[in-house]
């Protein structure tokens, strides 16, 4: 195994993510998945606004930097215009579950043949750690200094479970953590293969550490991920059935 994916752009290293960032780790795994499926020349990568935009020059594949929440519809448009490309929309929980939620839901309803990868780090990281739809109950953020209270802010969103209720039979939904290399790589590969085989909408949510905003060291970051797993159960939430 190599330390860096072949599909990463070496000239753009060191990348722009913070020290210990789980999103960078998820992108490394995505890079290895692209390598193993050998789709570097067919894939198109669309990143959102938020920390995900720091990956704008990370891959040596065709890349689109979209507007906030618009990674999904941009990649849908691309896929419809050029069905032969493998469209990967990459976003954070802000881009997918807040400003871009309508696009995500409608894309899932239409069963667009794209792959959406969403990073869940339980806060809005780039803007300094505000509450996100995914913030855990009682988790302290800069906008919930006393912790997220259900009475005021409701419960954290469960994206894959929510989408699974409206998804077409061929859709694929999974959740994994960025510190689990093998599982995450397999789920991302499944999601990409699901698109390549034209079965349906594919969605992977990756729980990911944000040491800068969580104010955690390496061990505490891993512990926080363990805490997140209690709210967000891992696994393949919906596997695709053969479309008749």
């Amino acid at each position, binding site marked *: 195994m190599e330390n860096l994916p072949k599909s990463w752009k070496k000239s753009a290293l060191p990348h722009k993510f913070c*020290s210990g960032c789980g999103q960078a780790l998820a992108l490394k795994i995505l890079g290895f998945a692209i390598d193993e499926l050998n789709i570097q020349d067919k894939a198109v990568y669309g990143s959102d606004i938020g920390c995900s935009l*720091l990956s704008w020059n990370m891959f040596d594949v065709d890349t689109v930097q979209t507007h906030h929440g618009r990674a999904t519809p941009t990649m849908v448009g691309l896929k419809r215009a050029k069905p032969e490309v493998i469209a990967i929309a990459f976003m954070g929980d802000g881009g997918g579950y807040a400003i871009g939620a309508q696009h995500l839901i409608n894309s899932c309803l239409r069963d667009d043949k794209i792959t959406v990868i969403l990073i869940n780090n339980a806060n809005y990281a780039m803007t300094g750690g505000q509450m996100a739809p995914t913030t855990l109950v009682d988790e302290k953020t800069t906008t919930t200094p006393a912790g997220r209270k259900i009475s005021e802010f409701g419960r954290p969103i469960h994206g894959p479970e929510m989408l699974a209720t409206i998804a077409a039979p061929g859709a694929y939904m999974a959740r994994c953590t960025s510190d689990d290399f093998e599982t995450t790589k397999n789920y991302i590969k499944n999601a990409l293969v699901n698109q390549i085989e034209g079965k349906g909408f594919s969605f992977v949510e990756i729980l990911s550490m944000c040491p800068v905003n969580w104010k955690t060291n390496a061990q505490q970051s891993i512990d926080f991920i363990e805490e997140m797993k209690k709210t967000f159960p891992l696994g393949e939430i919906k596997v695709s059935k053969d479309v008749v």
Partner: protein
Amino acid sequence: MKKILIAGEGGQGAQSIAEILALAAHKADLKTSYIPNFGVEQRGGVSLAFVQISNDPINYPKFDRADILLIMCNRAVSVVKEFIGENTLVIFDGSFVSDDKLQELQGVVKSYLSLPAKNIAQEKFGLKSTNMLFLGAIYHEVLEIPKEMISTAINEKFAAYPEFQQNNKKAFEAGLQYATSKPDQQFKGRQKQEVKTVYEDDQKSWERFPQYCKGCMLCAVRCPKNAITMGKDLNFLGTQMPEVDIEKCIACGKCMEICPDGAIKLEKH
């Protein structure tokens, strides 16, 4: 009027220095302005802080020539070059900014102070207090601010971390003392040092990349044999890098998998 430009790697504490200076000047009833300038990154990337301290009102928070310029990292050198004028005092970290980078400024810089802040901090106060040494050196040029104001500003800035307050004040004093003593100086940065990157025995080799490593230490946490520890050598960001006890290493590759920066490579022979 003093125009101060502070340039560091995001996360080195350039903005904290500026905040403390501006806050202290404000408390001393001087006119002051502070404006940060950095990219979209939360950490990493060059981060600039423009500070002005004056007796008269300040018209505009930015400027194109600095009276005092602080260079904390390699990548800042080319960014701040245009701010150096005839009368600019350049303060740099002689123990961290690399010499070949610094020589780009040869001839441009007329007066300078080389402060080995990384070394002093690593020995006495911990790397996190590096920026406070620089604060001391800058304060030597703006003595119109009473020292107790700086002390109050440090307390306020680190109110949430009482354990840092005393340490940071000591580091500040050490920086001030260094600037006052004016030791013999040379316009020289850190010489290229051979940092050990490859650890190997006959079964495996473990390689680290100082140009990629950001010192998050996830590798150390993930190692099932506790073979990885925080080393003394520094990476490109100036934080400590992991080192491996190759005897203990079982070549499982967990460190390579968890590294978000691709800074570890393990090979079995």
